């Protein structure tokens, strides 16, 4: 009967973890894919050496290795497999039998909570392989505990000492967990000689408190003295913004999750119900807590999904995600979403007709600190808009500050190719060629080294190259990607029609009448020989609106013509004119409304026009 209960409980644990895996797979695929792009593992001695300059480096090195598997769905199943192994190890280490086997699921669930709370930290956490570190930390700690269980008395003690000595450099703070779990094998303690039990406590104190100091004094010279005990733990602090308390709760839950399993094996029979209820309460409490605390929202998921679409040059996909309501609650978009949408429309040649068909917004990213565009999409935007040195620069800055990533190496490669910096592109390609999942990518781009003619035919680079044709100058973006791009293009002059249209789009977004007219004039002139040319709606709307606001401006563009004659040169659609009149009439009708009320009232009829954008979309704070 007990075996049956054990079997059923084991199957329940397995089923729960597999179900969790399925849910993670369904909801987190894009996030996990992004996370592996924001990580790096190289199969070289140098990479290992670099990882191990900090205590716990071996653990983070292993974790970075595992992170790369999030490139495919296998990554999630590997993680679920690791959680199952943890459950099995717990059962073995603490001899959980019968329904008490259910207690073994608490630790994996706590690990899942840590895993899922990451949110925007995927861009900022400096701990290498941070998504896998807690799981591997617990695994190594439990493995140590199981080895300890298997070894007889003095051998077990020798293992305890040996592990205590080497655990800190290898596993950092997680080494202390291993020692603790060994010390808490109470049934084993019963069979140990008394002297072993007496010695274990002071040894624990020495290994956990004193040895790390010694290691950091003599071997790990790059650890700040207040961080000695935090080795291989993520640091949830950005500059002066300390989010430790908001995120460390899950680690306290993890520690608490061990308690029922550790003591559960020694409780008297008949307490299964109590144990089960305790476990469920813990899980329910964790979930409720998590629900209030997690910084994940629609925009977070949409941002990573849109980014992935751009990586695949799936421009329609970008727009589909932008429009989609499949991500739960609907919030105004973040600036990076708006910019990615505009990029997609620009690539599709529809920006002039559709860029105001989507909701505008400057929603703050759902994180306790101000997320910067440079981290969440700025590099990619710079790359696609031909600002290759700025793309390269931010890849380098972020690589230095937050650690080297596949994403960073890829963008440094691509931007170096466009600037013909072949040698350094070779360096990054050679590194990526050694990775498990990015070598094909690297081989593809390797073909482009030294071959601008191939780049000119490349689907991705073809539209970028004309955007990157402008004279060199010294400049700076002051970390404001959007403002820099807008100003650089709106003030830029380019002979390429593609570039020229971007100058027009940016002058439109900036609502700058002085910049608009020469760019609009340039656009008309560049396309005047195109018999099928139709001026896109938003450009017409802007020209019509501006010619209404300042009637003399068109004639300044066409010297020698009267205002009316000049206006005639602009092929306005009747619909554009009519909508303007309707907008103005409606505005008269709504005269007493506040601007906020007008925003709502005008949106259904005019939300997709430049008129609405010009008059009612203001103060979009960029980040």
């Amino acid at each position, binding site marked *: 009967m007990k075996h049956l209960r054990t079997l059923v409980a084991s199957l329940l644990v397995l089923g729960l973890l597999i179900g969790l895996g399925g849910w993670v797979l369904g909801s987190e695929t894009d996030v996990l894919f992004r996370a592996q792009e924001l990580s790096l593992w190289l199969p070289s001695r140098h990479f290992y050496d670099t990882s191990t300059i900090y205590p716990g480096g071996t653990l983070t090195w292993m974790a970075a290795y595992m992170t790369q598997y999030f490139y495919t769905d296998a990554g999630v199943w590997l993680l679920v497999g690791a959680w199952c192994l943890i459950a099995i190890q717990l059962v073995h280490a603490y001899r959980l039998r019968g329904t008490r086997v259910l207690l073994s699921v608490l630790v994996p669930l706590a690990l899942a909570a840590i895993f899922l709370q990451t949110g925007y930290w995927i861009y900022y956490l400096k701990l290498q392989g941070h998504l896998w570190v807690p799981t591997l930390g617990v695994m190594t700690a439990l493995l140590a505990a199981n080895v300890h269980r298997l070894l007889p008395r003095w051998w077990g003690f020798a293992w305890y000492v040996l592990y205590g000595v080497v655990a800190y450099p290898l596993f950092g703070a997680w080494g202390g967990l291993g020692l603790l779990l060994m010390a808490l094998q109470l049934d084993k303690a019963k069979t140990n000689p008394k002297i072993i039990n007496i010695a274990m406590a002071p040894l624990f104190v020495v290994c956990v408190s004193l040895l790390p100091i010694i290691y950091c004094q003599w071997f790990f010279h790059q650890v700040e003295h207040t961080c000695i005990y935090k080795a291989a733990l993520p640091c949830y602090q950005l500059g002066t913004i300390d989010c430790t308390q908001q995120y460390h709760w899950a680690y306290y839950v993890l520690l608490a999750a061990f308690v029922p399993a550790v003591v559960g094996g020694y409780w008297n029979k008949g307490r299964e119900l109590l144990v089960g209820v305790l476990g469920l309460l813990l899980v329910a409490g964790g979930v409720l807590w998590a629900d209030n605390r997690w910084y994940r929202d629609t925009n977070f998921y949409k941002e990573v999904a849109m980014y992935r679409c751009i990586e695949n040059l799936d421009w329609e996909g970008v727009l589909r995600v932008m429009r989609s309501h499949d991500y739960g609650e609907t919030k105004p978009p973040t600036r990076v979403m708006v910019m990615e949408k505009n990029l997609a429309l620009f690539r599709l040649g529809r920006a002039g007709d559709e860029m105001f068909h989507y909701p505008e917004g400057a929603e703050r990213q759902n994180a306790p600190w101000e997320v910067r565009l440079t981290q969440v999409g700025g590099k990619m935007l710079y790359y696609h808009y031909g600002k290759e040195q700025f793309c390269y620069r931010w890849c380098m800055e972020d690589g230095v500050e937050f650690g080297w990533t596949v994403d960073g190496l890829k963008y440094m490669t691509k931007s170096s190719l466009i600037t013909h910096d072949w040698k350094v592109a070779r360096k990054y390609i050679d590194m990526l060629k050694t990775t498990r999942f990015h070598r094909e990518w690297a081989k593809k781009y390797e073909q482009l080294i030294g071959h601008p003619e191939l780049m000119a035919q490349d689907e991705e680079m073809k539209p970028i190259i004309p955007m990157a044709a402008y004279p*060199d100058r*010294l400049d700076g973006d002051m970390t404001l990607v959007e403002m820099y791009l807008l100003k650089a293009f709106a003030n830029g002059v380019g002979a390429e029609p593609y570039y020229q249209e971007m100058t027009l789009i940016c002058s439109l977004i900036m609502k700058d009448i002085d910049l608009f007219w020469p760019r609009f004039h340039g656009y008309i002139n560049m396309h005047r020989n195109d018999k099928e040319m139709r001026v896109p709606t938003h450009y017409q709307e802007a020209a019509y609106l501006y010619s209404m606001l300042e009637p003399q401006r068109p004639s300044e563009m066409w010297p020698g013509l009267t205002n009316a004659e000049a206006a005639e040169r602009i092929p306005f659609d009747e619909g554009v004119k009519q909508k303007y009149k309707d907008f103005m009439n409606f505005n008269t009708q709504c005269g007493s409304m506040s601007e906020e009320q007008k925003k709502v009232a005008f949106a259904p009829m005019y939300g997709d026009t430049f008129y609405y954008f010009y008059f009612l979309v203001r103060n979009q704070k960029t980040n």
Partner: protein
Amino acid sequence: MKSALRFLPIFLLTLASCSNPQAPEQYADSQQLPTLYPEYTDVTVPINIAPLTFTVTDTCDASMARLTAGSVSRTYAGPDICPTEKDWKALVEQGDIEVEVFCQTNRQWTRMKPFAIHVSPDKIDPYISYRIIAPSYVAYEDLTIRQRNLETYDEEIIYSNMANTTESDGQCINCHSYQNYDPNRLQFHVRQYLGGTVIAYDGKVEKVDMKTGATVSAGVYPAWHPTEKLIAYSTNKTGQSFHTQSNEKVEVQDTYSDLMIYDVENHKVYAEAARDTNDLDCFPFWSPDGKTLYYCSAHYEKFDTAQATTKEFDMIQHYKEVRYSLYRRSFDIATRQLGEREMVYDAAADSLSATLPRISPDGRWLLFTLGKYGVFHIWHKDADLCLLDLQSGQMRLMDELNSPDVDSYHSWSSSGRWIIFSSRRNDGNFTRPFIAHIDKQGRATKPFELPQRHPQYHHELMRSYNVPEFMLGPVTIQPNKLAKIIRQEAVKATP
């Protein structure tokens, strides 16, 4: 023990890649030199250098290399050719090494054109130190000043900024420098958090705050006086901006800079009160007798005097017009006074810019960097090393050392027979130290890249070497001691 722990998992891999096989007996000869990384064909190395390891990068199914010197011959399987220290010692003791690289394709071996590694009996100083820094621009994270034993591959940290860096308080470290190559007499700067200048002198270590009202900044680029307890510095107000197109990436400019001298013993700063703020003095360096201070200087006046633009903005607009020339000033050791300035090389008159003057220990040669403009030549691809004979006044670009990419920061060994310099020739972005022999006539040999235990190390390293300097031995002050001193209050220098 930490090293052992770190290296254990990859020990077998290393063994596998560096075994000792037999060279092929049958092969065809090619007149083509093999392609190697690092490029070590026909370089000259000191007899006491660590083994030169390299990778055969030719497209081969298999490769190997045979190194022969006198009666000693060793063969290694490729593509990574890694002579052991014992093998290497046996080889260099015999003199020049002939290297034969064999490349197998379609089961046929080809012997590439053999080349030599020339071995000079002139020993090199056993240690160098450098800063390891990612070539970023604003952001920084871990920075280390390290020392490397040139006779082995052993590298140690002298000081890491991470020892005193928290998430909210970052710390930059730079400009390590030694008096007469003596590792017991060193200085380096700590910027921002817990900032100051760390000065160690024969066992006494202190942190000094050199910022006084008399100077635009604390000491920046240092030069130890060869005999006195004095350090000359430039004081600089520096800014940077970014190229939108050029692969030179960044332009660093001084809008104000001047010279000062710091008395280590008395914590006293000597700075001149009257100065032309349009003269930008930088990179001081003492003559070996300590009676002359060499430096570079540019005269820059705002182009746009009509408009109310800042000098910084004006310089950014005209960055190619800022050109430095080489000067010197006599120095009175007794009074600590500098004499009038004297032109050494008017680079600006040639529409060029000369920086980083470094005098050879025998006082005859002045090695400097020559570029088209500016002071921060480490990012200028046209920056080349140039040698001025202070006896004859003859000057020449050192074509035997220079590359199409950046060749800049350089220093002489204590014997004057070797120089080490930074170059971005490998990939245009990451500086690597190169070493070259230089004879009494000022002729240099082909430089070789600092050898590493694994030849691909530099190709994968995402950091640059900064300010390589020779030392007669290792710095023995423990990093944790330096960290502790940096946490203490700085000694305030007085004007």
